[in-house]
């Protein structure tokens, strides 16, 4: 295979040793040379990276080549492997994470600072093989973290967090400003690292599903869906049609609730409280409809491997319809209000601009990518049922500013309203779950994978089910991994006072990122 020929992802997978029982996309163990070839494709912008995660002595990378998805895996003797991040920066934090958790050591990685490990766990490499607890380390102090330098006359630093002023998740932002203008923002995350992947390893599927649903609270439906679909792919089962449609109904309600909340909150960060109040009412209507329909305001633990946990009754359906009707009626006035308020537009237009090249390089999902020209939605491609039977548009804008991210959300609210109506109209009858088959035989492992569109972007779930039906390893990749670094770029040259606005327009997850 010559480099000049521009290999397709499928060539690379076929050049490696394919892994049995990996569904629905293929995975292959590859040689370092093939690994490097893939990194080259990423660096040259031909492919996108969907994820990178570790296991003891192995590193995996999920890749997207046009509409084709595949995973390549590389053995890392002594933990060493050629760094992806040295040529393709979106991999940097993922590689630092794999280093923290598994003791992998990416060769050539330009940034070797610890990422999730703040020196507080009492152990190093908690997920590495063997007696990891024995590898205790001297706790390092938080101040040992070296922030990247920014030098020049009259620059000053503003440290913010981890405890923020509002009701927000914790994380640290280090601003360097020249007067009011941000010269550099550096994020430090990892404060809410709970060790979810460690807890999942060796857990029964039911317990792991509950953990997946608690990875990022605002996306509990999307995470449960991604996890369930990965389990079903691994075990070769399919959820019954009614469950598939109910899952989509929950996913769209979750998207509606979050987008409505975000639109209001972004305006609130521009001191326009009226919008916040009205959007808050509509959001509450959706949460109450979710409660009436499925018995939980956030619909947590309602999607389970094999189907859904609660059926939709007449009353629930009426509650959802009534919420949708109210939003259909009131939302257009709010859109008009947003569009016609010059003082608000003055804050959002041209603020926090994210260049399309960066969105493409980082394969930024959700409204962050779509507001900067990246036309990607996992519901459409690779796609999953029932969206192939539903009509919806994927809005895309080029401007990449706060205003564009608001408009993408507005358009997606409209799309989700239509999707909910279509689903309610055509909801099939039948059972809502199937049994999970017998666990694999001793010594046999089944890998499964899923890519699901949450409100924030595409969530990747990858897992392996081993003997006894236990989850051997599960990795969940939040869309925020590829959005957080872009916030650093988008804020540059803006004033410090516009940071809340920019930050809210990204609305990245801390918990989903920190795991």
């Amino acid at each position, binding site marked *: 295979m010559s480099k000049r020929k521009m290999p397709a992802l499928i060539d690379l997978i076929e050049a490696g040793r394919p892994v049995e029982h990996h569904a629905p996309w293929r995975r292959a163990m590859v040689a370092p040379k093939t690994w490097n070839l893939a990194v080259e494709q990423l660096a040259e912008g031909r492919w996108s990276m969907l994820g990178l995660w570790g296991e003891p002595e192995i590193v995996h990378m999920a890749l997207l080549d046009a509409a084709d998805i595949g995973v390549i895996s590389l053995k890392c003797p002594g933990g060493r492997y050629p760094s992806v991040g040295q040529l393709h920066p979106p991999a940097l934090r993922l590689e630092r994470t794999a280093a923290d958790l598994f003791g992998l050591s990416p060769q050539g990685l330009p940034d070797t600072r610890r990422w999730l490990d703040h020196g507080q766990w009492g152990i190093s490499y908690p997920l590495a093989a063997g007696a990891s607890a024995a590898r205790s380390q001297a706790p390092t102090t938080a101040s040992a973290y070296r922030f990247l330098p920014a030098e020049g006359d009259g620059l000053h630093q503003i440290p913010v967090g981890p405890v923020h002023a509002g009701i927000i998740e914790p994380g640290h932002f280090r601003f360097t400003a020249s007067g009011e203008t941000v010269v550099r923002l550096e994020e430090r995350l990892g404060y809410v690292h709970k060790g979810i992947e460690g807890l999942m390893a060796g857990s029964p599927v039911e317990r792991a599903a509950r953990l997946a649903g608690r990875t*990022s609270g605002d996306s509990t439906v999307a995470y449960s869906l991604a996890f369930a679909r990965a389990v079903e792919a691994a075990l070769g089962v399919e959820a019954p049609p009614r469950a598939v449609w109910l899952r989509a109904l929950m996913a769209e309600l979750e998207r509606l609730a979050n987008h409505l909340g975000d639109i209001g909150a972004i305006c609130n960060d521009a001191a326009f409280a009226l919008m916040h109040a009205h959007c808050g009412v509509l959001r509450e209507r959706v949460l109450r409809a979710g409660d009436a329909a499925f018995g939980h305001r956030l619909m947590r633990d309602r999607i389970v491997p094999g189907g859904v946990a609660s059926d939709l009754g007449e009353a629930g359906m009426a509650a959802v319809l009534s919420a949708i009707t109210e939003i259909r009626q009131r939302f257009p006035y709010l859109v008009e209000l947003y569009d016609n308020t010059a003082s608000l537009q003055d804050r959002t237009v041209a603020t926090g601009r994210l260049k399309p090249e960066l969105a493409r390089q980082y394969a930024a999902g959700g409204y962050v990518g779509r507001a900067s020209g990246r036309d990607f939605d996992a519901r459409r491609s690779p796609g999953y049922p029932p969206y192939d039977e539903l009509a919806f548009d994927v809005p895309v804008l080029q401007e990449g500013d706060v205003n564009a991210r608001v408009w993408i959300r507005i358009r997606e609210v409209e799309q989700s309203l239509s999707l909910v109506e279509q689903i309610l109209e055509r909801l099939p009858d039948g059972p809502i779950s199937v049994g999970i088959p017998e666990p694999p035989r001793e010594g046999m492992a089944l890998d499964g994978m899923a890519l699901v569109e949450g409100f924030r972007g595409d969530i990747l779930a990858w897992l392996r089910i081993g003997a006894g039906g236990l989850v051997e390893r599960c990795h969940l990749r939040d869309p925020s991994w590829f959005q957080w670094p872009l916030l650093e770029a988008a804020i540059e040259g803006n004033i410090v006072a516009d940071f809340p606005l920019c930050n809210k327009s990204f609305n990245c997850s801390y918990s989903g990122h920190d795991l």
Partner: protein
Amino acid sequence: MRKLLFESLIRPPLTEPPPAASDAAVDELARALDGAARMRLGRSLSIRAVDAGSCNGCELEMHALSNAFYDIERFGIRFVASPRHADVLLVTGPVTKNMREALKRTWDATPNPKWVVALGDCARNGGCFAGSYAVTGGVSEVLPVDLHIPGCPPPPVEILKGLLALLDGVNAGTGAGRG
């Protein structure tokens, strides 16, 4: 905008009648609080929310408390931006080890008298995250907790009940509120 504002004048309010203070919370507080806390707050409560590792679910429901349906400020309860202004730390999450120090410092920055409310199932004992190398296993591992509000996440009305119980309990000293 004029139309929206005008409509708001003639539409009936969405705000719902206040819930009764939670019985369970009142009982818990009766044990936790002594007479010294009596009448300290004058029916007003300033809350500093601290996320110590939650999944963000509890935060969403905390936000909901400020919407038109629950309108928490009508009870004199408000969320403040600094622990220096707070009477109560409302702590969520299993308290990750990476947040332990920040939580302690937030507590140190809060003036006396102060109370700690642990919100959500994982704030009680780590919940489904208990046993992880990365969590301490609940707020009480780090700070003295006066009240737990259970749920995953607790719906806004349950949070409200718990906080009203705290208000009543603190003011009555004995915890004999309206429960």
